[in-house]
């Protein structure tokens, strides 16, 4: 089981309670598709992804970014057993969506960059460490049902 300090718990709850899911979700997914273009392979039916401007303005990307970010709520609410909370989502990503798990890290990095831009100086090294630890646990749980 993952050990969380009081600071880590508070930090994660704080970040997500103040988060604008529409903006952060859209920006993170769009940024991932721009910076790591091979990730577009999973979104063949999303229409125009031909350049950065198209991706940033694509409504399907925005909608899906929101879905993905709300997927993190499960972990925020179940920090003491993220592994169990994500069992179904892990099977989904492996068996149905066939997502290479390395992509979780790429999206996680983009989410970190977007949150850093939102929080500015408030994104201290300590806050960054807590946030990245949280993402690492989520990513590890999402990978667990891959066989």
């Amino acid at each position: 089981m993952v050990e969380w300090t009081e600071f880590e718990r508070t930090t994660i709850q704080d970040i997500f309670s103040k988060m604008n899911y529409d903006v952060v979700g859209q920006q993170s997914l769009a940024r991932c598709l721009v910076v790591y273009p091979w990730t577009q392979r999973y979104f063949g039916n999303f229409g125009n992804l031909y350049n950065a401007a198209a991706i940033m303005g694509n409504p399907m990307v925005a909608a899906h970014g929101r879905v993905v970010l709300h997927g993190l709520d499960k972990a925020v609410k179940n920090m003491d057993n993220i592994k169990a909370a994500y069992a179904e989502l892990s099977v989904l990503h492996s068996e149905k969506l066939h997502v290479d798990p390395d992509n979780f890290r790429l999206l996680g990095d983009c989410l970190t960059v977007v949150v850093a831009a939102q929080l500015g100086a408030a994104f201290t090294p300590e806050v960054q460490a807590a946030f990245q630890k949280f993402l690492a646990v989520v990513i590890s749980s999402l990978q667990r049902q891959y066989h």
Partner: protein
Amino acid sequence: MSLSANDKATVKALWAKISPKAEDVGNEALSRMLYVYPQTKTYFSHWSDLTPGSAPVRKHGKKVIGGIGLAVEKIDDLFAGLLTLSELHAFQLRVDPANFRILSHNILVVLAMLFPDDFTPEAHLAMDKFLARVALALSDKYR
């Protein structure tokens, strides 16, 4: 993933914006690397203070960001331009190249924090590619 003319122009333009704050960027990036990825502290066991923003960290952050600035200048031929630095890292410092990716990530995070309007997705893409090429050039002499 080589650098297009557009990538180079984007990196140079972004660098021009951030160079007034280069020292802060270096300090923040190095501080975060040491704090968020504690395994990187193993290279600095000879320092008195490894906490974020300490004197040795700030001093070294300045040196490291100076190296990145040099890389921007030599962007058209990174392998030749960073030859001496590559030899330094290969034969003396012997930093495991996996750590270049870690530092690069922290540089990107700091750029997003300090320059949220300038660090657009296009700038992020160009910078990520550039730092990856710098890492490649730095590891060129390793073996």
